[in-house]
């Protein structure tokens, strides 16, 4: 009964990675006094996972499925500064074995993105952004039931830098990297063993995380489409031992490739459909996840100067 999970704290990060357009990692900002909001549904599943560096399956888990329904909203305070919020509800279940499914409201994320500079360069524009995000659990869920826990139960702060080059013909390339600091978490038990050491305390040190995303795409008019690569590295933590359970502070690394399409429908006006998918091509202490996401986002304009 040993398996892995990536979901959870990484879940939010990575799902934001796959939602583009006015997300924390992209090269766009909402105009002032506009509010884009909606729901996204994400379906993740894996059958194989990496126990440390050893790839394996586990017939007492079968396929692990995580489904997330996320409320998402982004508001343009100004053309340069956007703020974002999201709240996911998460369901997990294993197709085999006896372990029970779990579900619940996971973590609130609040973030802000600021366009530091934008200059014309050649046949396009070059822009850089800085962003900060704060996340914290909204419910007292347990992080000690991996891979069925709905989250990591850690409060995080992250700082991000994004650079973007968008050509006048619609092609763009974007790169974004973030460092996420994670607070320690408390378990319901008074001791645990991880990373080669027995700890006589319920407090677990959570290693910090670095992630980056590189994406290439086309954005013109109502259409945005792109392909991307993301990498998440946990800066510390132990491996899942042979045939052991995964643990909240494991060194969870993942490399993913994916694609996205977002399209503003002709009718109703201001409603956008967003579809994306990604696949974990390499990892450590995570599941080899296939992830699919669909969302509907509606934009409200509280100003007359529409784009």
């Amino acid at each position, binding site marked *: *009964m*040993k398996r892995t999970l990536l979901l959870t704290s990484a879940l939010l990060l990575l799902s934001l990675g796959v939602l583009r357009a006015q997300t924390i990692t992209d090269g766009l900002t909402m105009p002032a006094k506009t509010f884009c909001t909606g729901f996204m549904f994400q379906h993740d599943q894996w059958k194989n996972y990496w126990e440390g560096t050893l790839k*394996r399956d586990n*017939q*007492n888990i079968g396929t692990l499925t995580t489904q997330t329904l996320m409320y998402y909203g982004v508001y343009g305070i*100004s053309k*340069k*500064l956007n703020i974002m919020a999201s709240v996911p509800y998460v369901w997990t279940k294993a197709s*085999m*074995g*006896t*372990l*029970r*499914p779990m579900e619940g409201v996971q973590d609130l994320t609040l973030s*802000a993105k*600021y366009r530091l500079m934008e200059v014309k360069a050649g046949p396009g524009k070059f822009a850089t952004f*800085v*962003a*900060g995000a*704060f996340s914290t659990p909204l419910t*007292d*869920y*347990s992080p*000690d*039931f991996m891979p069925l826990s709905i989250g990591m139960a850690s409060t*995080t*702060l*992250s*700082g991000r830098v994004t650079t973007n080059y968008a050509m006048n013909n619609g092609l763009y390339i974007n790169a974004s990297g973030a*460092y996420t*600091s994670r*607070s*320690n978490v408390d*378990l*319901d*038990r*008074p*001791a*645990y*063993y991880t990373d*080669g*050491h*027995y*700890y*006589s*305390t319920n*407090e*677990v*040190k*959570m290693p*910090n995380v670095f992630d980056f995303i590189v994406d290439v795409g086309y954005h013109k008019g109502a259409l945005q489409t792109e392909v991307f690569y993301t990498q998440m590295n946990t800066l510390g933590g132990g491996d899942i*031992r*042979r*045939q*052991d*359970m995964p643990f909240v502070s494991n060194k969870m690394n993942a490399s993913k490739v994916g694609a996205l399409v977002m399209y503003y429908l002709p009718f109703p006006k201001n409603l956008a459909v967003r579809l994306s998918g990604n696949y974990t091509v390499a990892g450590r202490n995570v599941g080899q996840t296939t992830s699919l996401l669909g969302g509907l986002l509606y934009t409200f304009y509280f100003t007359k100067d529409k784009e």
Partner: protein
Amino acid sequence: MKKIYLLTIVLAVLTVISCDKEVALNQELKTLTPSNIDANAGTWKPVLLTSNAQIAVVAPTAVGSDAYKAELQAIKDLQAGLTKAQRSSIDYWSAGGVLRWNEILRGLVARFNLPPAPLANGTYPAPDAENPFGDPNFPFANPPYAARAYSYVTAAQYDAMKAAWYWKYQHNRPAPYNVDAGVQALMTKTDLPAYPSEDAVMSGVSAEVLKLLFPAAVEEITLKAAEQRNAALWSGKATTSDISAGLALGKAVATVFTDRAKGDGMGAAIGSKVLWQQLSDNATSRGETPWISLETPPRPPMLPFFGLRTFNATTPGVKAWMMTNANIVAERPAAPPKTASGEMSDEVAEVKWYSENLTRERLAIIHKWADGAGTYTPPGHWNEIASHYIEDANLSEVRAARAFALLNMAVHDAAVGCWETKYFYFNPRPCQMDPKIKTATGVPNFPAYTSGHSTFSGSAATVLSYLFPGEAQYFNDEASEASMSRLYGAIHYRSDCQMGLDHGKRIAGYTVNFAKTDGAN
């Protein structure tokens, strides 16, 4: 305005990044200052030794001899140049060797408490004592193995401490810091005679017993033992001759225990495919649904012949400390409800209700007591609980060793009694009876009746209540909570829990009876 937002974000990030997140690597224990040095412990009753004087310790050189003076000078020279690392070793061991070795032992159990991974052909390799570093490692320190390991280490330490006390008061050579004002006392100063060094005795007995039980951890064990002896030397507690005499005594006591361990029936506890089938057939022939493994691929039952007495000529059952074979059989709980009975259906229905009505509060209880794979096991949990009371009570090393030995001998006997019961009845788990039952913790790979957690906890709470009567209510409440956690988690019926808890308490009575007459009161 925008700059303020940006600044706020940057400051918030920097604040969290710079926060101190370090979690203590070792148990935070206070410096041991025994309230009583138990000068008469050399008269207390041994567990396995024929007497506390069984292993002779020759008289030391006199305090006035040149050889001894040279030893004192050597300590002074060492103390003049102590490094930060050496001082940190002294601090670590100044909590007392008994508490430290217990912490080390809990860590070893957690490290080795991993079941073998299945092979591609659907079978499971058995851990091999002759190849302890292989995959799987040896041992698989599951709860019965762990109960036995905790009991061997702590009972051996207890006998070794009594022998040390006996010879200390035969030879009466004071500690270096009491002989020479130039030797600093870097641990708490006491009047306990130093020859043989109790720290060295403990390093020797602990390391030798642990190397048998956890052979793949030989390096870590050996280094810890050496560090304990060095800390005794550096702290001005013992000279090299105090230490060498202590080490020899500790190792000799260890031999008495390791000899017993090699022939205590553990080697036959796994059994064979033919014998496992017989257990199943016996249940079927009684008209019962026999237990089956709920893992995929099916895993052989955990240590089926750990408890059963003379099921087969080749499987004697692991020896208990305080109970005879007849005692073990006589204390076995009455049969569980027939698997086909209405009473059983009611029990299954109750488990299912808990499965479907999990609350966060019950989940916390389930996780608090889960103590499953990769942990120090329920016996380790009770050692961890005991460690806090032993620390707070300022017990001498010999009395602290007694507390852990009594606890762990009772818990080992509980493991034997519970495993005897489990495989005698071979009763199915709730989710075997109703596959719709989903569990909030892993289903252990052995029969349900009775609950191991309940039996371990009943026995542990009974011994700890005897040792710390003012806390009896707390220990019993914790034991009841541990017991019920298995029903909440939907892996045990209520009767498994209740009968197991009572069984554990009765089993502990044998150890408490020993304790009442061992001369320590």
